């Protein structure tokens, strides 16, 4: 291969970076919680209770594994609409997520102003997600610039899809971040599709990580269905950033297990075979097998866990359904600072 250097898969070590057994189970719990919430969103959408669902199914290992390497509330995070697993890992709750999804007055992200999955949390330094793709990338460089100026050892993580890498924002952000060696990680969840447009029509290279070479910064390719590989790769990038060694572009290869959103009919562009193949790359059973093999998970524990998650989700949904919508008078507030 011509470009060996930049996209050699980063592999998890046999024993991942200092993670305890409890942490490993915690990773699994977060992935399972993300999946459970996500599945419930689709159910609610089909029931007509939610107008819209967007999914992180298939991305959980990439999201949870990478966010687990950050310091919540200290590091800054600019997620995108798929990043349910990221925000849960940082500390948002199922209740938060459903309050937002139902556009409730108490929705922590926007009080009902934004569509579902447009996360924000001031306390956790999770910057408000917008819908335009890739705008968060130059912003992430700016957040990191401020941390550097303030002399803080704080890292910024910026998430986006493969589609985002075709936009000028990507170029201008990575260029600036690399020139100034900013403490920022650009984390691409490459699921091979920008809605219906496959990677081959989006870029002339086989790997998003290759795009890093134009900016003289490390471009890492990692199997995004392997949560420990992702954690290890992200942790190294975070450590470099924290040590003042500049930005990294990480490409986590993931599989989109659902249509783009509940508005999408993916049979128009995805063959049954391709979708079946994607299902083979579900990160959850993969991690479950690993935990079982290590003796950390068995049927009983799994059942307990699933039950706890199901309760958490149901309680969250009930709470969110019952919560009041924003009052009409709220609509005129916060255009400007009071």
């Amino acid at each position, binding site marked *: 291969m011509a470009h060996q250097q930049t996209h050699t898969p980063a592999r998890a070590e046999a024993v991942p970076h200092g993670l305890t057994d409890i942490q490993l189970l915690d990773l699994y719990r977060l992935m399972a919680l993300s999946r459970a919430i996500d599945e419930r969103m689709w159910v609610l959408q089909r029931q007509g209770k939610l107008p*819209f669902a967007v999914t992180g199914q298939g991305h959980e290992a990439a999201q949870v594994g990478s966010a687990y390497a950050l310091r919540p509330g200290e590091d800054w995070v600019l997620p995108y609409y798929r990043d349910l697993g990221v925000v849960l890992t940082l500390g948002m709750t199922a209740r938060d997520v459903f309050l937002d999804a139902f556009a409730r007055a108490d929705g922590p992200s926007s009080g009902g102003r*934004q*569509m579902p999955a447009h996360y924000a949390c001031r306390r956790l330094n999770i910057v408000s997600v917008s*819908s*335009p793709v890739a705008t968060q990338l130059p912003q992430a460089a700016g957040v990191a610039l401020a941390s550097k100026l303030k002399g803080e050892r704080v890292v910024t993580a910026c998430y986006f899809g493969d589609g985002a890498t075709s*936009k000028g924002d990507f170029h201008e952000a990575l260029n600036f971040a690399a020139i100034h060696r900013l403490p920022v990680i650009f984390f691409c969840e490459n699921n091979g599709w920008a809605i*219906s447009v496959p990677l081959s029509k989006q870029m002339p290279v086989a790997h998003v990580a290759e795009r890093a070479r134009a900016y003289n910064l490390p471009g890492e390719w990692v199997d995004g269905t392997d949560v420990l590989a992702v954690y290890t790769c992200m942790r190294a990038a975070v450590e470099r950033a924290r040590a003042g060694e500049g930005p990294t572009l990480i490409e986590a290869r993931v599989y989109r297990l659902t249509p783009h959103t509940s508005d999408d009919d993916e049979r128009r562009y995805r063959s049954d075979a391709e979708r079946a193949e994607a299902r083979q790359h579900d990160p959850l059973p993969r991690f479950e097998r690993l935990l079982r093999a290590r003796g950390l998970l068995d049927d009983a524990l799994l059942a307990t866990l699933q039950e706890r998650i199901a309760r958490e989700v149901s309680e969250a949904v009930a709470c969110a359904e019952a919560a009041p919508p924003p009052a009409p008078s709220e*609509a005129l507030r916060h255009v400007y600072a009071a």
Partner: protein
Amino acid sequence: MAERTVVEAIRDALAEELRRDWRVIVLGEDVGVHGGVFRATDGLLAEFGPQRVIDTPLAELGIVGTAIGSALNGLRPVAEIQFADYIYPAMDQIMNEAAKLRYRSNGAFGCPLVIRAPYGPGVHGGLYHSQSVEAFFCHVPGLKVVTPSTPYDAKGLLKAAIRDDDPVLFFEHKRTYRRVRGEVPEGDYVVPIGRAAVRRRGRHVSVITYGAMVHQALEAAALLAPEGIEVEVVDLRTLLPWDRETVAASVARTNKVVVAHEDHKTLGVGAEIAAFLAEELFDQLDGPIVRVAAADTPVPFAPTLEEAVVPGTRQLVDAIRRLAAY
């Protein structure tokens, strides 16, 4: 005559123009294999192939820049921006390039380009799937801006836009896509750019509007008729250059004007129409020029909030009734 929805009429126009003129191409995100997130380009790839129906990377600047270049070299590109809310990255190419190419080259180069984009609120889209961006483009000499409200106009105006030698922003109201149906002739026809249509005659108040709000204005007119208030409804259809004659003639008849749009008020298209009338038809006015428009905020997602911000038939009725009584 066949009954068609707005989105079907648009698809028909694209297919017919692609068939008629080899120079026409269609490009944008998901316009090919997918057929467009609103299905406006459904079937085009199959009929016209990947050279003429191009699935682009997610890159609006590039989409429009590339389209401009292809227009310079003899093509008639129709670029799709998936939602009008995502047109901003292409603003430099549209405003500094497409709009100014002819002027700056003293007429030597032109830019026959159509940019199609779904726009407008009322589909629970929140801040980034609800925007009305037409006013930005109406401020740019060199551009044309079209906003059809019916299937007939959508087809005829899109054909006119594709055959026009200048860049045309073609904004399609999402709420009309499937909800508005109407008769569309089978054969080829164009609706000329720059001409408004009087949708209903009335003696008391003129409502000047465009896009989906035309239908709400007609609703309002019907509601007010029993009260003896006769409302004239003018559908601008083209916002730049807009049809001053038709508007002026209507105002000369009614002497009272409501200018209405779903875009927010400040510097919306209604500002220009009101300012024009206040300057050129001052003597004919028997009352203030009333603007019905959205509040000056982004468009929020929750229905309670969106309804508080975006005007509808109720706001129109109130405004017309008050003005009629003035």
